[in-house]
């Protein structure tokens, strides 16, 4: 099939040619995604093979009997399934949270403070003459980003690499740094200070800037400010280097303010490098169904948002949940150990195509069809652009949507509503 859609990272490349076994135009990670690999063979309840119906019924019982179940994951499935997940959390009086809460959630907090002046990836391709990668490493995390969208690609106004000034700012010289026209190495945890220094220079308060900020000399900072302000249309991509470091949401807030300032002189947009192929959808669907993107508690019969209490990690560490439904995710591999410890104590239901670290802790395991290969649906690229991922081959596995549909029906039935 031509123009299939890859379901690994936030690039959501839609030009994949797939022959049923391998795919063309894939990056190494995409190739691994499309390659055949070990699957969860059958639905299991505490190690015993059962039918889908039985596993789902047992799962519904666990969830209904819990006081406050955690429903987590969602970034690697389709919106249709996510929507059922949000409704399920509402009906159960549980907590809905998604992978963003260990990734770009601080970007949402920054947006709540200042907004995000953004744009689509096509703007980088067509218009950008300055492209900045700040605390992100697309060459390893979003391999085709530079060639499809941001660096080498030929656009409507910007005709190729030689017309783009590419800046990379990071604490280490990453693979992406080798693409840069200029690389600026800053000290870990000093992003906030560097943004403030740049804003000061651009706003004409150069005198207030000390001789060195975050490991970068004032001379270099002035040079960077000059490059930024001389761009006709600039795009700043940033990554977890900001959201995972000291300052977190405040770092993002400050880069937003830098972009606001730049827009008083020229045109700039800001785009977070979102990780999973539908982590954006996991936030957007929850926003239209329940009003918030993540960390949503329904224990009072309506949605409440409180990131410091209701993210999955917080709920686990505080021991505020007594069961968990994990969909298309692997928190046991990606949460700090304190949170994983709680996950091991409570009943865990997992829906996933592949055995992973969470499988080792799960009481009920329900295998699902591979999204974008065996199951279709809508996903949102890192810039929010929706794409329909396709079903490329038949399977005996149920899709996330089918599993969750039956689970929701069972829950409603058990609750007698």
């Amino acid at each position: 099939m031509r123009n299939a859609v890859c379901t690994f990272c936030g690039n959501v490349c839609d030009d994949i040619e797939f022959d049923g076994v391998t795919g063309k135009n894939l990056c190494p990670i995409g190739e691994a995604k499309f390659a055949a690999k070990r699957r969860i063979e059958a639905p299991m309840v505490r190690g015993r093979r059962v039918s889908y119906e039985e596993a789902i019924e047992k799962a519904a019982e666990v969830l209904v009997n819990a006081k406050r179940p955690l429903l987590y994951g969602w970034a690697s499935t389709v919106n249709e399934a996510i929507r059922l997940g949000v409704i399920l959390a509402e009906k159960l009086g549980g907590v809905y949270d998604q992978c963003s809460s260990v990734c770009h959630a601080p970007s949402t907090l920054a947006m709540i403070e200042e907004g995000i002046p953004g744009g689509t990836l096509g703007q980088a391709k067509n218009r950008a003459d300055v492209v900045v990668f700040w605390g992100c490493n697309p060459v390893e995390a979003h391999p085709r980003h530079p060639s499809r969208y941001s660096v080498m690609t030929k656009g409507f106004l910007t005709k190729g690499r030689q017309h783009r000034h590419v800046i990379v700012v990071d604490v280490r010289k990453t693979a992406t740094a080798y693409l840069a026209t200029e690389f600026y190495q800053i000290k870990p945890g000093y992003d906030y200070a560097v943004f403030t220094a740049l804003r000061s220079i651009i706003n004409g308060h150069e005198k207030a800037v000390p001789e060195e900020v975050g490991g970068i000399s004032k001379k270099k900072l002035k040079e960077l400010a000059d490059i930024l302000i001389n761009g006709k249309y600039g795009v700043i991509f940033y990554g977890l280097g900001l959201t995972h470091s000291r300052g977190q949401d405040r770092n993002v807030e400050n880069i937003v303010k830098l972009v606001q300032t730049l827009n008083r002189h020229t045109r700039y947009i800001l785009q977070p490098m979102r990780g999973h192929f539908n982590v954006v959808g996991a936030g957007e669907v929850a926003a239209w169904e329940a009003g918030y993107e993540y960390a949503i508690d329904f224990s009072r019969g309506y949605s409440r948002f409180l990131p410091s209490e209701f993210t999955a990690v917080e709920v686990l560490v505080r021991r505020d949940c007594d069961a968990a439904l994990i969909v298309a995710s692997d928190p046991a591999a990606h949460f700090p150990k304190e949170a994983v410890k709680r996950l091991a104590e409570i009943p865990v239901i997992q829906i996933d195509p592949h055995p992973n670290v969470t499988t080792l802790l799960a009481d009920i395991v329900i295998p699902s069809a591979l999204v974008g290969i065996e199951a279709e649906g809508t996903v949102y690229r890192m810039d929010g652009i929706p794409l329909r991922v396709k079903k490329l081959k038949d399977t005996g596995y149920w899709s996330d949507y089918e599993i969750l549909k039956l689970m929701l029906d069972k829950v409603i039935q058990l609750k007698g509503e």
Partner: protein
Amino acid sequence: MLHIKNGIVIDPKNGIIGEKMDIFIKDGKIVEEVEVNGCKTIDANGKLVVAGGIDLHAHIAGGKINTGRAMRPEEMRHVRQKTGKFRAAVGRTLLTSPAIGYEYAKMGYTTAIEPATPSIYVIHTHEELDSIPIIDKATLPLFGNWHPVLRYSADKDIEKLKSFVAWVLERTKGYGVKLVNPGGVEAWMYGGNVKSIDDTVPGFGVTPREIITSLIAAVEELKLPHSVHIHCNNLGMPGNYETTMETIKLAKGFENERRQVLHVTHVQFNAYTGSSWRDIGSGAEHIAKLINSMDNVTIDMGQPIFGYATTMTADCPWQFELHKIAKAKWCNRDIELETGAGIVPYVYRPKNPVNSVQWAVGLELGLLVDSEKIAVSTDYPNGGPFTSYPYIVTLLMSRKFREEEMKKAHPYMEKATSLSSIDKEKSLEEVITMTRVTPAKVLGMENKGHLGVGADGDVVIYDIDPLNYSSNDWQTILKAFENPLYTIKSGEIVVKDGELVGETWGRTFWVDARADTTTEIIEADLEEYFNYYTVKCCNYGVKEAWLRNPVRITAG
């Protein structure tokens, strides 16, 4: 089957003004009198019976409102309904999708149009529309800054433009053609804007005047049910009424027997005199006079409501201005070569002279423009929540209520507008026209806005006797419109005594205009154009099968 008996019907389209009569609904449609045995009966004795309300311009779905929700958790803390038989519903002026459907139904509205979708984001818009219960809906894709449109308009190539419009409507399952600040959003990509309909758009040598007239020509030749729907240039700026008048006059070159050829939306935001914020005034009288003198232009109010609002529009350069003026948080999205979007929270304060003028201008338009040519709107959520429609309707109907409300406004309003000197009180017939008949006609929805045989079975019963009410008793009017006795959607009772009692799922209308066009003549252009896109042409748009309940309407 449903029998509504003894109600006092106001159905202006069919010439019925306050007649006691029975209404019958079968299979979701209004039918002739039928055998009433065994059929559910509602006694509406002495109560007002009308068609379901229609909102022709409300940003109820898609990237803009959803980004608004995510950036404004403070908006979502207002709890309207806990989960139970129906979904939980939250939101103060920005509502969740379930809340939108429920709240429309709870004030007797059964149809709403999402008026500004960037085509590349259209799957998202449809996903949200499909998550809104009860109401029927449709969406209008944005055309005014899209590169092929700019190019065909510059070349005056109406044939290609027609093909392009038809192609887009099919791909997006869109209902009509929306323009927002034509040319101005493209200029924003260079940090600029256009200041009049004769400014040149950078890079294209085309003017807003040419973009607007080319699209009107294309839409009229394609015989789309809805006309060009425009958000004018210079929105929000003092003195902009002149640009609006110029834009309205562009309709003079066109004719259509069935409907207007140009719908100018949320005109309140485009009806200011003055040269700065210090001497801003109302241009409503000029505009009303012009609209009333023409028979091929319609407008909607864009009424601001004192209190919280969230502005969201494709008019990015204006949103950047507003971000600076209001010193508020700002989301922007520049969208490929199509359009853009901006979101800025806002509060309309009665003590603020400019906000008071805005409030008065909306009402002046509502009172001075013929009811057949103006629809009620708040440009939700730009002017405020759609849940304020009962408030707006009551203001239009009761001079006494207006006087009460005017006391809250800044005294500058008195100087800058003529609201206080307008004695006009709209009749029930007129406000029913403004909320039902006019929007249905503007949209070209023949089965909506009336109660004739064959019309949709969307009926509302309000607790007011049309033959016996006083405009001075505004409390009764307001209460009646805020709490319908019944809202019936496609023959199903969804609201009773102001409370939600049923949940249905409405339809999504889209227009197929491909019959008289061919994509052959634009194929080469599309191919070139998609080189600059970041999605493949074949992955662009939405298929009918992905929608919950699509209804295809063939143009012509």
